[in-house]
């Protein structure tokens, strides 16, 4: 009874604390949360919906890092437990089609990808390795992904490609920064990842834009990607911002939706309308692209305002819905936006919808395997520059330890876009930078970073020859014949124009910060496709087959040899039975008649005649 009262007391106190927390949220502006949804119709009846949830927490050193209101506890604890200053995790299913969809807001690769920057006093390489694997373990639990497979055998320390996006704060600039990168291309992404990801949001999936992310409607997309980025921005240790950005990037194929007419709506895409906005959010905005592919639709209801943004000479018009204003007088109703094709245009659109491709983006990349057989092959990465200026290219490869790469075979050949053949070896493109960390069997992956200049209006083919390793028996996964993955390469460049470029500038944190954000140049990073190689795979039932076969042979050999070695051969005496067929029958009949009388005599006779062979082994006689 007493215990019960105490429990109730605890409960009450918890409510009181919660109540206190609630009261403060409006006052304390050191923590902010914003939700944004960007909807862009793409070419070829596709729609891109991009969710971004940004939590910013302005904190100082003297405040307890455990005391958070909007930032999830696990993220705040990261700063206490680890020297991590910046962390990126991406979980993606599908392939982003750069040619037809343009560049995405956030870049990810298929499967799981993770990288982190560490910075702190007295950090050593071993310590960073330890923290890195532990960090992966933490997020394997937090996001229900198999990130615990991240370890030294599949992690590298990128040298040039990934640059820090955090501010370490003044004074300790000479502290060395450590980075670790790893990818798990085999990782699947499903509801079990979406659920914990949504739980990190202040409103969970109860209200706000996250309520649109229902598993059945997220996973029937052509491409879906969940992202989580944490970074710290410190002016000095007493004045820091912890920034948590959660992104969900989806591409719907309208032709796969039920009763597809090319029109769509929020309800059609997500299964339900929007039930409001997250009450804890500072802003809840929906941006709808109106020009380019968006031109073919009419919006119902009309957006409250329009924003015209020009970035690097490229103009995009967005319609804006401010959900906090939208729901002011609306009460409990669900909010829906419909994209309707105007009646006159419908015929034309249905007839010629396929032709509405966008101008291809300036840089494109693909990757594939060359060669046949399970022994060796060649990894080929093909880049295409459609732009009229040369582009600086930086490429990073992470080749797993079960694939041996030969550095001396690394070549970059180029061709003009008008030609189909690559030029001969004399005209290879020169490397500006070559960083190579050789792999070690079962310990380290091969890490390769190259930089070169890609001439205008041309393509380049980067090839490197590889050997596939024969693994040990227990190193093969249960589905060994599925093949082994080589993660995607990452490519970085500086674009002079911002056509199809939607990324958020590095010093901003909201999607609206990309509006009118003209810069001298734009850093673009792209991922190639991941590769799947079939390593030499033994027949795992072979030992069993060998044992069966060997046993059979031994048994077959043993029987006759044993019999020959242990039995005596005796010449058979002629039997009394006649040889003629007729006489044989008569003999048998007479024998049966006199059977009862001759029984005694017969057995004696049999004994006397014996078999063709007489056993002399006493054990044999006992058995029979």
């Amino acid at each position, binding site marked *: 009874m007493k215990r019960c009262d105490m429990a109730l007391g605890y409960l009450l106190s918890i409510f009181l604390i919660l109540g206190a927390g609630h009261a*403060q949220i409006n006052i*304390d502006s050191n923590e902010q949360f914003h939700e944004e949804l960007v909807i862009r119709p793409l070419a070829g009846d596709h729609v891109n919906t991009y969710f971004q949830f940004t939590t910013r927490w302005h904190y100082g050193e003297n405040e307890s890092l455990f005391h958070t209101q909007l930032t999830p506890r696990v993220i705040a604890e990261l700063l206490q437990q680890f020297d991590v200053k910046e962390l990126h995790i991406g979980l993606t299913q599908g392939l982003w089609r750069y040619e037809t969809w343009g560049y995405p807001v956030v870049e990810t690769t298929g499967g799981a990808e993770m990288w982190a920057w560490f910075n702190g006093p007295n950090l050593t390489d071993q310590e960073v390795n330890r923290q890195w694997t532990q960090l992966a373990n933490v997020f394997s639990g937090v996001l*229900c992904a198999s990130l615990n497979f991240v370890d030294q055998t599949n992690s590298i320390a990128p040298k040039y490609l990934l*640059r820090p996006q955090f501010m370490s704060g003044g004074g300790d600039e000479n502290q060395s920064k450590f980075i670790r990168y790893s990818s798990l291309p085999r990782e699947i992404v*499903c509801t079990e990842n979406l659920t914990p990801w949504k739980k990190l949001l202040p409103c969970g*999936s109860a209200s706000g834009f996250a309520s649109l992310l229902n598993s059945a409607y997220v996973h029937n997309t052509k491409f879906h990607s969940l992202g989580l980025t944490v970074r710290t921005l410190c002016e000095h240790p007493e004045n820091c911002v912890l920034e948590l950005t959660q992104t969900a990037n989806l591409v719907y194929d309208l032709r796969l939706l039920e009763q597809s007419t090319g029109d769509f709506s929020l309800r059609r895409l997500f299964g339900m309308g929007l039930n409001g906005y997250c009450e804890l959010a500072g802003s809840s905005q929906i941006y709808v692209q109106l020009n380019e592919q968006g031109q073919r639709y009419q919006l119902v209801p009309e957006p409250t305002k329009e924003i015209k943004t020009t970035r690097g000479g490229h103009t995009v018009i967005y319609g804006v819905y401010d959900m906090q204003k939208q729901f002011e007088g609306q009460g409990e109703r669900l909010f829906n936006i419909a994209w309707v094709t105007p009646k006159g245009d419908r015929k034309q659109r249905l007839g010629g919808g396929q032709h509405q491709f966008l101008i291809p983006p300036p840089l494109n990349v693909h990757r594939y395997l060359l060669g046949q057989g399970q022994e060796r092959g060649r990894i080929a990465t093909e880049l295409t520059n459609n732009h009229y200026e040369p582009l600086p290219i930086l490429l990073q490869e992470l080749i797993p330890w079960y694939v041996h790469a030969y550095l001396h075979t690394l070549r970059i050949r180029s061709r003009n876009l008008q030609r189909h053949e690559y030029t001969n070896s004399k005209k290879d493109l020169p490397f500006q930078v070559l960083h190579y960390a050789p792999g070690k069997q079962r310990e380290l992956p091969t890490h390769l970073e190259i930089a070169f200049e890609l001439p205008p209006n041309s393509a380049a083919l980067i090839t490197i020859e590889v050997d596939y390793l024969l693994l040990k028996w227990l190193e093969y996964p249960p*589905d060994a014949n599925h093949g082994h993955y080589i993660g995607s390469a990452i490519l970085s*460049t500086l674009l002079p124009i911002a056509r199809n470029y939607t990324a958020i500038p590095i010093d901003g944190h909201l999607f609206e910060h990309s509006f009118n954000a003209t810069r001298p140049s734009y850093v673009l990073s792209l991922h190639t496709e991941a590769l799947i190689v079939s390593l030499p795979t033994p027949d795992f039932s072979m030992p069993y087959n060998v044992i069966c076969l060997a046993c059979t042979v031994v048994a077959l050999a043993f029987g006759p040899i044993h019999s020959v070695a242990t039995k005596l051969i005796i010449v058979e005496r002629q039997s009394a039975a006649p040889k003629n067929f007729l006489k044989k029958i008569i003999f048998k009949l007479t024998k049966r008649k006199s059977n009862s009388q001759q029984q005694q005599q017969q057995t004696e006779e049999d004994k006397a005649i014996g078999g063709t062979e007489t056993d002399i082994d006493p054990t044999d006689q006992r058995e029979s």
Partner: protein
Amino acid sequence: MYIKLLCVLLYVGSCLANVDDTSVLPEGFVDATQRSTHTNNWAVLVDASRFWFNYRHVANVLSIYRSVKRLGIPDSQIILMIADDMACNPRNPRPGQVYNNANQHLNVYGDDVEVDYRGYEVTVENFVRLLTGRTQNGTARSKKLLSEAGSNVLIYLTGHGGDGFLKFQDSEEITSQELADGIQQMWEKKRYNELFFMVDTCQAASLYEKFTSPNVLAVASSLVGEDSLSHHVDPSIGVYMIDRYTFYALEFLEKVQPFSKRTIGDFLQVCPKRVCISTVGVRKDLYRRDPNKVLITDFFGAIRPTRVSTDRINVTLANEDDFIVSTAASKKPSFRIIIEPQFPTKFFQLKKLRSM
């Protein structure tokens, strides 16, 4: 305290038994042993089969997951191991959904599933480490079985089995001896109060034969020498949906509400030979309570009886300053964000390259 009481009762009981020379135990003792004594509930649910044609095993394990979650065990106390991804498998025409029935009434995958071990992580080693609490250093909290002496643990296994073993992912197997050793270690380490072991596989009864640990109740979908059969096929996905035993177990569990008076005894009758085709095996000799008096929610749910009080309750707050931050929280000055260049332009001598 309870142990003392039990000892006294035991003593009195034995005295009485000696005097009366009968095997009837005193009522108080019987009551005390029959009462449930657990403080919390844990569930370890394992699907050990990979590949699309084993869809039914994933549906099996998700059926039990759905039930224990619905009956109140939180996700943090359910360890779900699924060896392959069926919901988002490219062959699944209904992405993100797994059904137990061709009629598609019940999406057992649900909208908020949390899988703790998946894919290649489902190995015999990880399973044994999980049970015995010898997880590797740095394992995430959600991947640990943090049960204690007061926990009732439900272990559910499904997959392809044989006489004395259960296959994990077609590449390794756990034997009944290893399983029994693991559970004995759990008992020695005080990792459970009572354990309900459920297994749906061919020759399932062979898996609990070697058990020697106390307070274990085991049920198996088939006896040694028998196959455990699947229920029906869904032509739209081309594979079997669910196994018979789990299908009827789920049918029963769907009718159980958190405060239901149904007992484990009822649950053991859930699949008679008529519908299961295999014979359901039960092992009760290690279990001290009468299954007919044990509530099903002792294992499949986590019920916290709460009392609503209208009385005045005096709550003493330790120190208000500890958790009420002054409302005049200082607003931090904002600052300019300067990030180093994201592209190493120094390597390129592009004449036309625009400086950053």
